[in-house]
Structure formats: C-alpha cells, structure tokens
C-alpha cells in the first residue's frame, strides 16, 4: 500500500489515466490557442489538504482559476478540478482564441473570464475522459466557475469544499507548456481517497 489507502497498482493506474487525459488536454488547448502545447509534467500524490497547500511554491502573481467539480448521482466520483492560467502571460492567447471564434466574443462582458471558462471546460473534459471511459461511467463536470488571485488562495478555496486540512486526498497535477510562448497551464485534480479506493485495477491495463 502507498500511504493510507491506495495500492501501488491503483496509484499507477490512476497516474496513467491522468497522463493519457493530459495529452488530450494539450491537443485541445493547441487547437483553441493556435500555439503548440505539450505535457511538461504529470504527477499524482496522496497527501493531506494542508500538505497540498504547503507543496505549492510561494508565488504572489495573479492567476485565472477555473474550478469545476463532479458529484454523484450524475458522476460516480466526487472530484474537484482547478485549471490555472497566469493572467498576464495568457491574455494574448485568450485574445487570439476569442478572435478565432468570432469578433463578437471580444464584445462580451467579462470576455476574458468567458474565454478562460470555455477553454478550461474543454481541456478539463479531455483530462477526465480517459478516467470515465476506463471506469465505464460518465463524469459530468459542473459549469466552470472563474475567479482570479494567487495560486494558493485559489487552491485553498477549492480544497475547502473537500474537507478538513488533515484529510487525505489524491492530488493529481499536470503542467502544460506552450512552445515559444510564456503562457503555462496548471491542471489540478482532487479526489477523496475513498472514491478511488473502490475502483479495481484491471489485471492488464493499457490505456
């Protein structure tokens, strides 16, 4: 067993599913922003909520955070996801994406939030697809909630919904990097441990 509740095989299986989803997310993000994105890193850890917050590097810069969640009965998993874009570095990409869709998009009130929500929704769906397909279920994500602030603050708001700071969570993190552009994208996915423990790892599990 790893930590208090997932076997090595279960952890490897979930990591593999997240990695497969991350590659799909990078592909969809490339389509929207017309910049090539790739997966820079992908990880999964069992840690306490306090540990997840402490593990974030100190960074006071402002990010656009898009929060989506899934809940039974629409989904088999209780899950929180947070997708982060650095505000300043991402602005030009969001503008390009908005222009590519329609000049009318830029006339929307809060068009930056609307574009961030739209893109995060599409790449978030790509991230969870591999998991849903593998578990033979549908994971229906909520509509996106967009806010801005430093990374730790945005993550703390999301983790507040999960439980107390001592609770153990399964914390997946994916970093996407843009080729030749300063923008980045961090995708965080949080499961309650009990939710994942229920899933059996197939004897052979190629993704």
């Amino acid at each position, binding site marked *: 067993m790893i930590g208090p509740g997932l076997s090595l095989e279960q952890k490897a299986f979930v990591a593999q599913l997240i990695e497969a989803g991350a590659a799909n997310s990078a592909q*969809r993000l490339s*389509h*929207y922003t017309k910049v090539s994105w790739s997966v820079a890193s992908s990880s999964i850890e069992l840690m306490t909520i306090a540990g997840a917050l402490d593990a974030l590097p100190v960074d006071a810069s402002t990010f656009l955070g898009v929060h*989506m969640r899934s809940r039974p009965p*629409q989904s088999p998993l209780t899950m929180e996801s947070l997708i982060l874009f650095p505000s300043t570095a991402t602005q030009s990409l969001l503008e390009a994406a*908005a222009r590519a*869709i*329609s000049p*009318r*998009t830029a006339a*929307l009130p809060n068009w930056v939030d*609307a*574009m961030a*929500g*739209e893109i995060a*929704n*599409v790449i*978030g*769906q*790509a991230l*969870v*697809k591999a998991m*849903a*397909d593998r578990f*033979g*279920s*549908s*994971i*229906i*994500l*909520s*509509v996106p909630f967009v806010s801005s602030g430093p990374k730790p603050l945005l993550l703390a708001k999301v983790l507040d919904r999960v439980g107390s700071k001592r609770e153990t969570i399964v914390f997946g993190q994916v970093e996407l990097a843009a080729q030749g552009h300063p923008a980045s994208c961090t995708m965080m996915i949080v499961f309650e441990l009990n939710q994942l423990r229920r899933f059996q790892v197939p004897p052979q599990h190629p993704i």
Partner: protein
Amino acid sequence: MAYKVLIVDDSPVTRIMIREMLETLGHQVVGEADSGRGGIDAFRSLKPDLLTLDVSLPDMDGLQVLRELRLKNPLVRVVMVTGNDQKKVLEQAKAMKAGFVAKPFSVQDLANALALAMGAAPPHP
C-alpha cells in the same frame, strides 16, 4: 432546408460560435437559453425544429433535459454540442437518438450532425 434552432448552453462563447455557424448554414436561431430549465421553457414557447444542447448546465445535465423534453415531445430533434465526449455520454445520446458534436468542431461537423438529427442525408462539403 432552413431549420428553426434553439441553442441551450451555459457558455456565452459557445452560444456565439454555434449561432454564427448556424447562420452560415442558412438556419434561423429562434432563441438561446443558458440553463436546462430555461431551455425546456424556451422549447415550449418557441417550438423550434431542433435544439442544440450542452451536457454540463448549471441546474441539470443535458441528458436530463432531453429526457424531460421527450416525455411530452417524443419526436424532439436534438444535437448534443459538448466538450464531454466520454463513451458513456455518447452511448446515452445515441440511445436517445440525439446527434452529437464534440468540441472543437467545424461548421461541417455541425452541418452533418444537424442533417442526421433531422433524418436527412449529410450535405457534401
């Protein structure tokens, strides 16, 4: 043939994208709704030929909306337009004879799904 279409999607960006594609194809957008309940009410008052329907909506999911519409209107024509292309969602949409377009998509993808949902042969590009 031009259809009267109702767009049901929480995202204003997607609503713009679908509206412009539909207008390019010569269809008429008779209304927009940003929630499931709003979509059901708009369907009843506007009586469109077809709905485009998102899966993730703020108050209920798109498949629930479709089930509710089908109770009183078994022949309602729907194209699901969504970023959620999970196998189970596709299967459910197919079982309910709804068309399906996964984001990102082109005008041609939408045209093909509309034609299939309306029971016509898809137009050639």
